[in-house]
């Protein structure tokens, strides 16, 4: 009789191999979908806070140019009201909203001056401009002093200030209605929602990331 040991050993080795290949392996959790936007509808509390701040005067505020030079309110052009848009350099919403505000700026240059206000460093602001492919007029609000004074804590908010520094309106988020409210106050015709650059603009006031103080 031939020895069955080799067959037995072979089968044991085979069983070990099968075990190795078929042993249960836990599945890693699916990664989060990074494409999901972080933008959010404006909280009611922001609307209440910012409407209470309306009517303040920011003529004593001091900004910085990207070259580091201090820029007090008094040094800004005085012939037209100013629109200040609050953005954050690493905020997807700011990047997304930039095209809407660029369009609004171009369509209202005769009626208002525009500045995009960041709490970030000049290098970060340059990076932001490179990403959107346009060099928007920008100011640095170190430590978010102006933003905090008005109660603005998130990107996507914007204000209309008169040349004397009086804040006549604060919009608690970006939306087509908000921009058209601004245009209405500037006595301009509303923006048509069919404009290509307004594609995807929020219909309800929407904010982005918190501003870094």
């Amino acid at each position: 009789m031939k020895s069955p040991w080799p067959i037995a050993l072979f089968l044991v080795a085979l069983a070990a191999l099968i075990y190795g290949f078929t042993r249960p392996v836990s599945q890693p959790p699916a990664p989060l979908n990074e494409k999901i936007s972080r933008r959010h509808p404006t909280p009611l509390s922001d609307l209440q806070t910012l409407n209470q701040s309306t009517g303040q005067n920011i003529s004593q505020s001091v900004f910085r140019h990207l070259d580091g030079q201090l820029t007090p309110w008094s040094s800004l052009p005085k012939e037209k009201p100013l629109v200040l848009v609050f953005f954050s350099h690493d905020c997807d919403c700011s990047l997304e909203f930039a095209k809407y505000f660029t369009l609004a700026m171009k369509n209202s240059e005769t009626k208002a001056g525009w500045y995009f206000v960041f709490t970030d460093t000049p290098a970060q602001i340059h990076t932001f401009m490179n990403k959107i492919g346009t060099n928007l007029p920008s100011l640095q609000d170190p430590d978010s002093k102006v933003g905090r004074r008005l109660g603005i804590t998130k990107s996507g908010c914007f204000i209309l200030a008169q040349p004397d520094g009086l804040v006549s309106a604060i919009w608690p988020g970006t939306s087509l209605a908000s921009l058209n409210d601004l245009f209405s106050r500037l006595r301009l015709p509303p923006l048509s929602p069919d404009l290509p650059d307004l594609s995807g603009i929020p219909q309800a006031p929407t904010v982005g990331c918190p501003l870094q103080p």
Partner: protein
Amino acid sequence: MSVVLSARNLSRIYPARRGSIAAVHQVSLEIQPGEFVAVCGRSGSGKSTLMALLGALALPDGGTLHFEGIDLLQLSPPKLAHLRSRRMGFMLQTNSLLPGLTALDNAALPGLLAGEPQKQAYSRALALLTRLGMGERWDAFPHELSGGQQRRVSLARALQHEPSLLLLDEPTSNLDPLAEEEILKVLQGLRDERKLAIFAVTHGDQLASLADRVFQMSSGELSLTAKPSAPASPSSLIDRRGPVFEKPPQNLTTQETPTPAPVGEWRGPASFFLATLILGAALLFSADRIIAWSQGRQLWAKQEKKRITEEIAFRQLRADVESIEAMGNGNVRANLFLQNYDSSRGFFVLGPSLRIFYQADGHWDSVPQETPEGSEAKIQEVVPTKTLIPFQFKLLPSKYDELIRGYFHIRITSNMVISETREAKGDLFERQDDYYIYLQDPRLTVEEIRRRNGWVAGSVVPPWIAMPAH
């Protein structure tokens, strides 16, 4: 040397239908301290009855019995029991361990019943169990022990109170050869150390070979017999190595001379059986693993499909209120949007089915919905660009809750069924969302809303405000 046990003409007669039977007949026996006496004999020869008589567990019909000079037959039952419990150790054929106690508790029981301090009783019981190879199983209950292990616990219990006489009835039955050898070593050690007198009835030659005197019991009568020669110890059997044949066998009737197999090679039915067993086990294991793997794959595939559908429903599908527009006279036109965040994986939605409510007195009152023609719930593919779902309703309530003054608080409930296929087969997932919005009361002017909310002139009054979907 004083005698531990002295029996003279002990007899025990059982009545039977065909006359009386002498289970023990005129037996005389003396046991010295440290002496080991074994009684062999066939079943029914009276060995166990003799042991019961010697231990005063049963009363003889005739004769005398002295233990350490005390006449046991003159003692009252309580005194006899007291003496037995302190000076004699019994190990009967049945283990009679208490099932609700651990091995340690069982072994310590005689000491505890005799009023010995717990620490001392348990300490000695553990030492005995360890000596008998049961130290690791001290916390096992009798039903968790094999027959041989139960025998060892019984022996530990018999030795617990350090008796001067140990009476054993088949102490090594149910034990494997190695365990038997261990127990015999313990008994030998105790006999030598403590001059323990041992009386054992047995069938086994190995136990009898260790005895100082061996008696043969036959038809109730005891006769001294020669000690059997000690069989080879199990350990020596196990250790034996070497070829089956020292040299090739000569003068065999067959013409072929068998070649001796080298050590370790396949030979014999035991080896064949073992190899077949391993082979069978390996086959069974392989088959089991393959089946389990196959089933696991199917289960995994199903779960993965479900997980993907869930992921689509919660991560890939974005849905929210896109726009709200007051049309006058309380009519509101709105759009819900559906959007697929991942263009690489398509999916379909049945619905959405919408219901609209407004808040009044802390409750949600339903608002009739007017679905525009052609926008009924249907299966539609959700694509990366927003798909708008239009709907209309009319809202002019006389009373409503104003979480923010001058605004209705509206809830839109959406129900959708998500499928990976247009046919909506297989795993479906139902997603329900509630969208909350604040909508200006069209009957109020902007100035009135500012006034009601205490907002300064010029402040922003949005036509509607959304809340995050939740």
